[in-house]
């Protein structure tokens, strides 16, 4: 049987080579019997972990990978079970997903959209991955999310903070557990008003790309609502390493707050430059000068060292959070790797468990079933407290942390202290909010591929 198939297809292929195949599109239409892309048929199911292993966010990526491996262990019933013990949904039994052992493949996004898509494609086309998780940049997340939508697999975003991921670029097959720039603004504003008063003059330095703009837009909107004045917003090239020339004008502008819409190495450098210019000990308009870094991470805090003392920012998760899920996760992660998990590690861990749980509850790996199971799903016990996966835009809604660089850190890991846990109601917005694509933004249809 296979022999006759071979000759027929060989013939068709040759005719395609001759150029005649172009006129016969039906030859190539999907002929496989599978109901959806990469339907697992054996005793195992493959997940794809696509994280930056080289490039500016390599540290975040390696932390994400550790968390993902831990999640796979827990799903397969190895180790101490981690958050399976505290997760409010009890569908997962520690015997893999739907009885199939969980395996994984890894890839390097290089924090480049092209490389990330190539690596995700190879996982889908070659290794048969049914879900892609990870990433540490919004550009990459949006690019890979689009790819997964086209290919018909589920994308569980890792660290991506720009509004667009679940805003104008939202996709039916994509889900984001991490918080976003709007939430940062909404959570920070009351704390800023409290600590700095309502008549401040802010000066923004913004990384000149998509994420920077959405964050600047969000912070400007929420601080101006407080009564602050925005003196100036300056875009800095992403590749800059020295920000001195951007700091000098701040001193002469009459601003008394500097907002750094920077991330990773950029933030470490711009903050260090600001400290070198002794901004924090200056008095402007009769007030102490302040610096705000809207998006924090442990790895950035470690990089900036002494300089972050007293600087305010926001986070999705911090290992010092005192709830059952968080304590359990920190324990599992700490026992295995000898350090507390970062922000990005936690979001990837939670995303893997959430995906697995959705498959169990849906009773299938079919992306459309998974989408249905995740939409409007309310859960707790993964470290962030009660959380909702909103159906309209596939964004998680949960409490947001406002943190400050610790004045007297006792060890290498407690560089940040939690100032306030902003309740979820305060950071919730309408799905058709203008910063999120307005009424034009739609998820589209879920795509099972095949």
């Amino acid at each position, binding site marked *: 049987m*296979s022999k006759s*198939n*071979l000759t027929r*297809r060989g013939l068709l*292929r040759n005719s*395609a*080579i001759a*150029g005649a*195949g*172009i*006129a016969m*599109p039906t*030859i*190539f*239409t*999907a*002929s*496989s019997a599978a109901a959806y892309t990469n339907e697992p048929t054996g005793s195992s199911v493959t997940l794809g972990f696509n994280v930056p*292993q*080289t490039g500016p966010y*390599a540290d975040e990526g390696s932390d994400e990978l550790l968390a993902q*491996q831990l999640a796979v262990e827990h799903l397969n019933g190895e180790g101490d079970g981690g958050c399976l013990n505290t997760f409010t949904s009890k569908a997962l039994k520690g015997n893999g997903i739907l009885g199939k052992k969980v395996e994984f*493949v*890894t*890839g*390097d996004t290089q924090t*480049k*959209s*092209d*490389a990330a*898509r*190539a*690596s995700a*494609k*190879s996982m889908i*086309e*070659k290794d048969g991955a049914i879900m892609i998780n990870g990433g540490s*940049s*919004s*550009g990459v997340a*949006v*690019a890979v999310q*689009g*790819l997964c939508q*086209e*290919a018909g697999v589920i994308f569980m975003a890792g660290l991506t903070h720009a509004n*667009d991921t679940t805003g*104008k*670029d939202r996709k039916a097959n994509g889900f984001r557990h991490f918080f976003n720039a709007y939430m940062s603004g909404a959570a920070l504003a009351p704390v800023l008003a409290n600590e700095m008063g309502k008549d401040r003059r802010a000066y923004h330095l913004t990384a*000149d*790309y*998509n*994420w920077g*703009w959405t964050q600047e837009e969000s912070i400007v909107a929420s601080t101006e609502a407080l009564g602050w004045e925005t003196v100036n917003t300056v*875009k800095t*090239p*992403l590749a800059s390493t020295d920000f001195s020339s951007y700091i000098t004008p701040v001193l002469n502008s009459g601003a008394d707050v500097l907002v750094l819409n920077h991330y990773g190495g950029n933030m470490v450098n711009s903050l260090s430059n600001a400290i070198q210019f002794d901004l924090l000990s200056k008095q402007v308009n009769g007030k102490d000068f302040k610096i705000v870094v809207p998006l924090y991470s442990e790895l950035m805090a470690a990089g900036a060292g002494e300089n972050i003392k007293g600087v305010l920012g926001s986070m999705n998760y911090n290992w010092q959070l005192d709830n059952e899920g968080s304590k359990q996760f920190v324990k599992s992660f700490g026992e295995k790797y000898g350090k507390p998990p970062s922000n990005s590690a936690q979001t990837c861990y939670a995303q893997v468990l959430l995906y697995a749980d959705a498959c169990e509850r849906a009773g299938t790996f079919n992306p459309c079933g998974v989408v249905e199971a995740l939409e409007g799903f309310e859960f707790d016990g993964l470290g962030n407290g009660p959380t909702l996966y909103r159906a309209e835009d596939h964004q998680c809604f949960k409490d947001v942390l406002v943190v400050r660089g610790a004045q007297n850190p006792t060890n290498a890991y407690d560089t940040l202290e939690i100032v306030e846990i902003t309740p979820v109601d305060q950071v919730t917005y309408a799905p058709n909010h203008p910063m999120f694509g307005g009424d*034009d933004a*739609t998820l*589209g249809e879920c795509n099972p591929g095949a």
Partner: protein
Amino acid sequence: MLGLNKKDFNLLLIVMALALLAPFLLNPFPSDSGLAQFNAGYPDLMQKFVIFGIFAIGFNILFGLTGYLSFGHAAFLGVGSYSCVWMFKLLGYNVLPGIMLSVVTSGIFAYLIGIVSLRRSGIYFSILTLAFAQMSFALAYSVLSNPKFNLTNGETGLQVYADDPQIFHSASAPDLPHLFGLSMRATEKLQIGAWEFQFNAGYYLCAIIMIAMFYLSIRIFRSPFGMMLRAIKSNNTRMNYTGLNARPYTLAAFVISGMYAGLAGGLLSAMDPLAGAERMQWTASGEVVLMTILGGAGTLIGPVLGSGLIKYFENIFSKINSTVLHNWFSFLPEGLEDLMVTLIYPFVGKGWHLTLGVMFMLIVIFLPGGLVEGGQRVKRLFKRRKSSDTDDEATQSTPAE
């Protein structure tokens, strides 16, 4: 045949066979074996092989023939990609208009950059092209993607949205790049025993275009025009003294190779409708130089081999992680297993650059003519064994220094 001599025609046949049988050649291991890790016969990577092959063939027309080393060729690749996606956005998902426009715009770009850069030669030319490419990168990355005038969509990459005009898009056509209804993603799978082979429509489109471009490049190499370009490389000053103005020739070569790069960029977008600014970064420009030198600059088939090698490393070696290594060496006793993994790990996974670097050094030092020279040496070795004293000449054109 086809205006080629016998040797070149045979070479064309070899390239055709390699390209058309790639799904078989690149999947030598059964899909359930441990060695399946090294299989490269999946659509995305095969497409990359031929697309970057086109890119390198075009680069070789400039670098291999005239010796002008352009460090900014990625700019044309990027321009091509953006043009193609814009056609998708405005006209619809048929790939032909996109590919055509990408060749035209990159040609215009190459002409403009060429008339400025070609006023200088040698290192100054390289630096000028590099500067232009980095300028294009900066423009695409941030300047031309501000909310008021969004041409490139910045870091996120240009992509097609549901509210784009797409005036020729019909309801029956697939919602993905297609050629008159034939989706570029359509893949036919063939199962023979434990082996699985994938035939992808997009790949075959790229492969056919690559063969055509390879043929065109042979014709350019063998034409009087190609001879003139070689003359520029060997002694430009003497050319000037004989009263010949070399610049129109170098400009033509520059534009042709820019159009090749644009075509490659257009095909990249046609296979995957997203154009990112990183395609224009200097690392991408450097990559094509590496490909050409690895394979053998100035030879016909060298650039294709070089691009294949680099893309293979980037996609296959980078995916070997420590878990995979532990699986391989699990037959060894515990201590030895860990030792082997520790020894090999720095060279695979995220360390694939290291392996590539070592290999590049070895090739440049011991095989200055690249992979093609390696092949020739092996061939000569066998010939010498057969008939000891035959004075054989190099079968391919002489590689560049």
